[in-house]
């Protein structure tokens, strides 16, 4: 009887460990795949310079510092992704 309970406990723990591992791997791999399948994007500053960057520096730039666009194969800007980067905010 004791052996049976012990076996059940070990089985339950192993199952839980596998469930946890599965959740972690699924979430990690799913995020990577989702990110890889996304079209390449680029940020463009809204200060009139039209400078492009992968990560805008918006310190002290005020609201609506940069806008993110999809990047076409020829390197030109495509449609806006809808993401904007803000600098100093009052929230």
């Amino acid at each position, binding site marked *: 009887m004791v052996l049976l309970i012990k076996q059940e406990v070990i089985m339950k723990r192993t199952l839980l*460990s596998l*469930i946890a591992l599965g959740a972690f791997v699924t*979430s990690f791999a799913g995020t990577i795949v989702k990110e890889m399948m996304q079209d390449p994007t680029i940020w463009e500053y809204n200060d009139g310079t039209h400078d492009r960057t992968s*990560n*805008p520096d918006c310190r002290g730039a005020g609201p609506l510092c940069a806008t993110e666009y999809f990047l076409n194969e020829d390197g030109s800007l495509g449609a806006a992704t809808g993401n904007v980067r803000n600098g100093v*905010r009052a*929230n």
Partner: protein
Amino acid sequence: MAVLLLLMLNDVKGNMKTREPIVVVIKIYWLVAEIMYVLSIVALLGVFAYFCAMKVRHYATFQEGLALAPQLPTVAAPYLAWIIPLVCFAVCAMIIYGFMQPRLLKLGLWIYLVLMVLFTAFIGYILRHPVDAPCECLGLDENWRWKKHFWVNTGILTITGLAIWLHYKRIVATIGNEHSENPGKK
């Protein structure tokens, strides 16, 4: 998950045969508590896995974001950009393996809580000092505003608290109880 649920339901069904309503009610309570416990831990692992994946995939953006953050030293940015996801990985490994070693699971959950408190406190500081607000790319999702990050972090903190509470209450007898390593011994 289905096998685990069957194991638990079988346990409840066994007690139903004894026709002792109180035992059945307690068993159902345990069943709900165990499911809540497992789901909360799965959710916590999912959050850190998502965070790690985002930071590894966008390493350059994360590193630049850290370097530009006025609250952090610039020289530490390249190291922090690796250390933060690695620590999250290590905590997840502790929790996953912790199901076999409950003490490790408890330690992992406490470290998770400490990390979440630190992250939430950092976001709270940013919200209090909006002039020095760094890039949102430091957070869980770069497209979220800091206010949203704060509320999401608060929710994750609550789930972590719930998981630790369930662990200490020993409601989840066979999972959280380190003395059930040898169930036959008293």
